[in-house]
């Protein structure tokens, strides 16, 4: 006998009558799937954000050369750039352009700050490989030899707490997915038990006519699978619509950090796997519940 959940004849389907999607089960699954998709998307987005943060800022030093005398500042900047470019393990050295600095200053201090002839420090971004990053203190000391006005900021110093936060939120999102999956499983157990009680008379008659446990379980599996298919699809679509709305709003913010938390194709595939896995889980749980109940009968 084929044991596929949908390979049930029309006559067999009539054995468990109730109107489709009439009970609460598909709607409960839809709500759970909606929340699971959001939590899953949150977790994946946070992972992407953390990765983006790590790759763009993780092993980067920012050098500031602060001196009121513009000539001294410029001379030390050139010496620093020259020294950094000669260091082994330095992947990239980039002086932040005057235009970029002006933009930053304008954003922080307002448009009048530039006109006030404020001494603007020279900023240099330095990307290191892991080996060079490990000896960043040595590099900083060498740098100060050639540019005494240099201040070296390790991005990881301020990035660490943020990375920890993103990591914690990522695990929280994963925990939510697991909890909601467990809750969905529990809801399926209750639904299967309820359906068993509702159809106990039919099941007993089938049982006494020689139905195997698997024949009976298949009927319930199919029914739960259809509920899960409807609920999963509905919850997934609702989740995608909400995520699309959030995505467009994040895009409007223009934030690099939030922007890096966007989902890529693989993430969408993973999210799509949630309703598929949900259907499989629902069928498996329904089957186990029904088989366990049937085994109590002779």
């Amino acid at each position: 006998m084929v044991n596929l959940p949908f390979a049930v004849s029309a006559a067999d389907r009539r054995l468990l009558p109730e109107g489709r999607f009439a009970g609460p089960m598909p709607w409960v699954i839809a709500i759970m799937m909606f929340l699971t998709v959001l939590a899953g998307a949150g977790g994946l987005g946070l992972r992407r954000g953390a990765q983006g943060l790590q790759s763009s800022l993780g092993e980067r030093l920012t050098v500031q050369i602060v001196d009121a005398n513009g000539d001294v500042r410029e001379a030390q900047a050139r010496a620093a750039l020259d020294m950094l470019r000669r260091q082994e393990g330095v992947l990239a050295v980039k002086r932040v352009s005057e235009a970029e600095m002006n933009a930053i200053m304008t954003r922080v201090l307002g448009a009048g700050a530039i006109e006030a002839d404020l001494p603007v420090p020279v900023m240099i971004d330095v990307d290191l490989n892991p080996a060079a990053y490990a000896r960043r203190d040595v590099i900083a000391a060498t740098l100060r030899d050639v540019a005494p006005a240099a201040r070296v900021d390790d991005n990881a110093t301020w990035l660490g707490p943020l990375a920890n936060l993103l990591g914690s939120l990522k695990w929280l999102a994963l925990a939510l997915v697991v909890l909601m999956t467990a809750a969905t499983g529990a809801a399926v157990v209750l639904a299967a038990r309820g359906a068993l009680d509702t159809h106990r008379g039919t099941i007993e008659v089938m049982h006494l006519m020689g139905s195997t446990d698997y024949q009976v379980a298949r009927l319930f599996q199919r029914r739960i699978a259809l509920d899960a298919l409807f609920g999963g699809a509905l919850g997934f679509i609702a989740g995608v619509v909400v995520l699309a709305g959030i995505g467009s709003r994040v895009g409007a913010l223009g934030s690099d950090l939030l922007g890096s938390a966007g989902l890529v194709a693989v993430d969408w595939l993973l999210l799509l796997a949630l309703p598929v896995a949900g259907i499989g889980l629902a069928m498996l749980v329904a089957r186990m519940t029904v088989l366990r109940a049937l085994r109590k009968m002779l």
Partner: protein
Amino acid sequence: MQFDNVGLRYGTGAETLSDISFTLRRGGFYFLTGPSGAGKTSLLKLLYLNQRPSRGLIRLFGEDLVSMPRERLPGFRRRIGVVFQDFRLVRHLSAFDNVALPLRVAGVEDRDLEQPVREMLAWVGLSDRASARPATLSGGEQQRVAIARAVIGRPDMLVADEPTGNVDPEMAARLLHLFDALNRLGTTIIVATHDIHLLTRIGRAEMMRLDRGHLADPTGALRHPPRRESTGMSA
């Protein structure tokens, strides 16, 4: 079917059936009688494999049922037709689908069961009620559907609990004729009944009488049935 010192107890109560021993010949016709509460339904439950005994030995079709794994029981149940006292029709299925149920359980394709089900419904006089749900059938009609369902699969053994309790005498005679015909084709028939008239209708039938959970078998004929000539049935 062989029962040997079988006892049945529900929970921790007293035994409902005690020291039941008998052998049913393949192709035999048996009436099971006794007062209400004597244990007839309990004995029938053992016969149609709805209960395991608390003690004793039961052999069916040559195999020990007491120690048989439950996974093998469906195969045996398909060889037993049951007419329940309360009919146990599936209320949301039509008369046709109720009668077809044992065939579907046995894996018969829809195209192959149409004709036998129609014929069986015709036999019990319900051709024009094939699409009716049980709730719209009279008690007698429901009983006939239940009987048609029990015999549609040509079982090796038919167990019927008061099968004529809700039908008029003419239909009772007709149903008994159906049982008789099945019996002549080799089906072992066990009918639990209070109807004294039924007992006289089948001359070759043997009587089993239960009283307070004990089987009366004063001559030992049930325990050691005499071998007798075939009555034309293929046993």
